């Protein structure tokens, strides 16, 4: 299995070069690194940025300092962007720039049903990460005419704001989340040669 020619731009773009040697997992090859190493590295950057925004911006200013609101309709409400939106907008911008990988935030209990698992790998993977704390799920799947290495990582409720927002939302199919629960999963897809 060979990784397509995506690594250099991706790694430089995310400033993740230093992370690559530290994250482990996957086998480094002469021509580059494995899809799993790349996915793990990307996820490390994504998860860290997401945690920083959630804890230092949203939870601090909304829950602790109570100086501003965070809202799904942030433009209309002149409020902070929700952490999940921050993540999705980043994913959209990456896609618009034509990156050769893709990521999304899915859940078995999504507020927007479009974000529920759809492919078999997503369905199996989200169940796996919820049932096996601390473990990631890796697989390959064919979507359209392309084969992807798909990695799924647990997305946990790391701050009170995550839990209360999901439990209180009128469209949330689950309202008993607790701090530290797996609330969904980050799905990263990297095209590979089948």
């Amino acid at each position: 299995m060979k990784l397509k020619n995506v690594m250099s731009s991706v790694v430089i773009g995310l400033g993740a070069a230093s992370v690559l040697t530290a994250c482990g997992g996957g086998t480094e090859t002469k021509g580059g690194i494995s899809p799993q190493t790349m996915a793990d590295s990307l996820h490390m950057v994504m998860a860290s940025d997401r945690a920083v925004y959630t804890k230092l911006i949203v939870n601090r200013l909304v829950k602790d300092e109570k100086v501003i609101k965070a809202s799904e309709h942030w433009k209309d409400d002149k409020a902070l962007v929700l952490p999940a939106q921050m993540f999705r907008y980043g994913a959209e911008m990456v896609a618009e720039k034509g990156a050769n990988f893709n990521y999304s935030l899915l859940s078995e209990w999504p507020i927007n049903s479009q974000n529920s698992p759809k492919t078999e790998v997503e369905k199996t993977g989200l169940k796996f990460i919820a049932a096996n704390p601390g473990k990631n799920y890796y697989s390959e799947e064919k979507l359209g005419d392309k084969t992807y290495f798909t990695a799924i990582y647990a997305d946990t409720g790391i701050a009170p704001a995550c839990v209360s927002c999901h439990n209180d939302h009128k469209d949330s199919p689950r309202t008993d989340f607790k701090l530290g629960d797996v609330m969904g999963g980050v799905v990263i897809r990297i095209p590979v040669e089948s």
Partner: protein
Amino acid sequence: MLTNNKKIWIIWFISTAMIAMFFGYKIFSDNEDKTVFLPGSTSHGHYQIELACSACHTDSFADESDIQKACTNCHAEELKLVDDSHPKSKFTDPRNADRVAKLDARQCVTCHTEHKPEITGDMGVTVPEDVCVVCHKDIAEDRPSHKGMEFNTCASAGCHNFHDNNALYEDFLLKHAGEKDILDVQVKSNTDIHKRISFIRTYPINEYPLKKLTLSDKDSPESIKVDQNIIEQWSSTAHAKSGVNCTACHSEKDKNSEMTWSNKPSEKKCGSCHDIELKKFKESKHGMRIAQGLSPMQPELARLQMKSSAHRKSLTCNTCHRDHTFDVVRAAVDSCLQCHDDKHSQSFKDSPHFKLWYEEVVRGEKDKKGVSCASCHMPRIEKSFPGGNKHIIVQHNQNENLRPNEKMIRSVCMNCHGLEFSIDALADRDLIDSNFLGKPSEHIKSIDMAVERVKQNNK
């Protein structure tokens, strides 16, 4: 002696060469009419510029991505502004590959094919009305209220749009549920252009500083004879009050970069101070031909009904604003009605909106409830400038909030009317034709459904 066969070959060769030369000249010459190459007339949005082939066909061998780039060159900003509900990134996500196989919404032309008048519907849409079903056929599972609805009513019943749902999303409906038909009027006054000058890069503030000018200050050259009426008209305008002298508009740089007098300044000159206004004008049905280097739009070219007396008018800034008077009251109603002659326009002067306008402008009512053509079609909108500055400007692209007409709800209708009334009114074709004389005849149930769903969830 040539044989008959040879003669036929020579005639064939000469005829072919002449035909090739004829078409070659037409296609490569900038000034030639290219109608002969049109494979079919274009949509309402593009017909004015359909002979500027290169506006869309940017390259002779343009592929899908080039065509897509041509679409986004003009429309990307607008889509971003309205938080497009179906951005391209939604469809480049591999998990939606099955949907893309059925409907490739990564390309604008999948739904908006041009040169196909026989299948072109409203908003230039060329896919069947049941297109939403491709992805949302199971909607009744999420929204039981939608069970049994016709497959073609998603976008035609005043409830949803493919791109712009800013005034139609569920939480917005809930926020404005129960509003009265008529609200307290939210008056938006233009920001004085003096406050905007520092944000206009090309404003000639050094040559024409902000100070009131009088008749004796006029700076037209001695060699140019100027009618006294014109000078008097100018002296009472905002231009004279702001230091904008004759040469500010009437001087143009010649080939040697020397400033020379110009009797008929171009719209580009207006844009050196009114930059946003000109940009938006050139995006509009009024100015899009100029933007493509074609002759200005003339009412006789329009697909809407226009007055025959106006057929040969050429649309530039002065057509509506009148040179030397720049009367914005005239520009807001009479300028529109000098050309537009469809039912909606014909009915305006009998409408309650016009009555309020008349009371404000003619009778001098102080509460400024008047509604002109421009109030709705060239609305005053808030625009952000660097440093957190927000100014109210007149939006000169009348298409921007027109199609689909729900785009008008937030920028216009809700300044005076409740959301429910606004949705109902804009869904009533007859009411639009009568220029809102009376009340909506049908009720769109979207707000009711949103309220009911919350009630059910809370049970």
